[in-house]
């Protein structure tokens, strides 16, 4: 893996919702194969930031370059970019009217123009990788939350993505289902995928992250390797936050 190739480059990025300054002067670089975990209190702009990475939100100023493509509202390449950048949502957002298999094949077939047979073969491969090959013909509502989220991960992977974004992927899950999703994410990390994960699962972060990012009030307060982040964070605010979420 080539650590020198930048996949996501954020420079001086600002984002407003009306008068509200949601993201303030963000600078961040994510290299190929790097795993970045973003944490911080709610409302700090973590989700907004990663939603900018695949054009679900648009920044107002600054530069955002992903895999060599400049991202801005109206960019022609945005749809190509979204095929490269997978997104896993807190609420799964599976397509409820389609079976699991159809959820996985609709993107490759309709967007990439891949044949049905080939798309299904790929889909079954990825279902195998998220450990639910037997659920292919069920509808999302028939699956548990953990299974649904693993289908959602597989759906993104079926697009042969190069970057995966996770927006609090385990926050909507019952506690006993969190690990099955995190396990899949750890396995995915081991394949060398570039990952940006917004999460409060610090056990996962310790295990997987190359870089920890702490955000507060729309700003990046701390960027450091996990050893330093968890033992000796440079900012007082970050230390307080960790104390709170690691207290029990």
């Amino acid at each position, binding site marked *: 893996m080539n650590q020198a190739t930048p996949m996501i480059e954020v420079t001086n990025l600002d984002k407003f919702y009306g008068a509200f300054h949601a993201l303030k002067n963000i600078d961040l670089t994510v290299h190929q194969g790097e795993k970045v975990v973003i944490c911080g209190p709610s409302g700090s702009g973590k989700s907004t930031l990663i939603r900018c990475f*695949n*054009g*679900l939100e648009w920044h107002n100023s600054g530069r955002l370059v992903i895999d060599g493509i400049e991202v801005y509202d109206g960019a022609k390449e945005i*749809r*190509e970019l*979204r*095929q490269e*950048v*997978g*997104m896993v*949502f807190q*609420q799964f*957002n*599976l*397509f*409820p*009217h389609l079976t699991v298999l159809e959820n996985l094949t*609709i*993107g490759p077939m*309709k*967007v*990439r123009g891949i044949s049905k047979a080939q798309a299904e073969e790929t889909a079954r491969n990825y279902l195998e990788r998220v450990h639910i090959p037997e659920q292919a013909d069920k*509808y999302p*509502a028939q699956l548990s939350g953990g299974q649904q989220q693993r289908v*959602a991960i597989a*759906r*993104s992977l079926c*697009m042969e993505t190069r970057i995966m974004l996770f927006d609090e992927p385990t926050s909507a899950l019952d506690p006993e289902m969190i690990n099955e999703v995190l396990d899949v994410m750890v396995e995915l990390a081991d394949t060398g995928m570039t990952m940006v994960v917004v999460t409060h699962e610090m056990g996962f972060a310790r295990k997987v992250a190359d870089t920890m990012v702490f955000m507060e009030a729309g700003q990046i307060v701390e960027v450091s390797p996990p050893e330093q982040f968890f033992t000796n964070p440079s900012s007082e605010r970050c230390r307080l936050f960790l104390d709170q979420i690691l207290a029990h």
Partner: protein
Amino acid sequence: MSDLGISRPKGQPLPKPPFLKRFFDSTLISVGIYVVIVGLIAYGAYIGAQGMGYNWQWYRVPQFLYRNTEVGFEWGEIPIGLVATIKLSVTAFILAMVIGLLVALLRLSDLVIGSAIAVGFLELIRNIPLLVLLYLFYYVLGPIFGFDRYTASILTLAVFHSALISEIFRAGINAVPTGQWEAAKSIGMSPSQTYRYIILPQSVRFMLPPMTGEVVHLIKSSAIVSVIAVAELTTFGRNIISDTYMSFEIWFTIALVYLVVTLILSIGVSHLEKKYAVDQ
């Protein structure tokens, strides 16, 4: 199961509900009351008609349903009119769906001019009476653009109902959670692909009940085209009456035909709804 410490004797029958409640809850009594009320109304109409000296001639009605002539069996004016009404309604409804979907998409689009056009269209159509709209299409636009009364009728019904249908589309589309849009975007779908494969299939479930109401409404309002003498059920009814003077019998029959058609439609769709509810 814990009984929360409340001791309650087991196996004791519950007290019976009061007599009046049991009386009105029983199916037999309900049906009885229903029959009595309907009977009273029918009897009232009959007495009223007799008071006018109306000469009932129900025996002459069947010939307008079907005839056995020397050349064989043939349908009467009423079934032929019904087929014409259904043709007219189906054509108008399909056109109304197309216009309605376009208007809804315009209204939901990010284009300011698009939603302005859509809102303008909606307000214009919703605030013109159907009859005036029909006259407008037949007497004004017809001669200008050179279309006949049948086309004018279809256009009138389609345009009038497209306004209501576009609101049904809009509500159905808005009822699909935004997460579905985001998920579709995140796998690179274009807006048109998102509508086609993700949003519209899911909004069908929300749109079916009001859309049925709209079809029923359209079939009923199609009767208005009889004022420009387009051949359909109501027009045929009028023609029969002007030949036979049996206004009571024929109008009752025509009303019953409309009722049967729209009832069948409603029952059919309620089955469809159940099917969709299971699928989700």
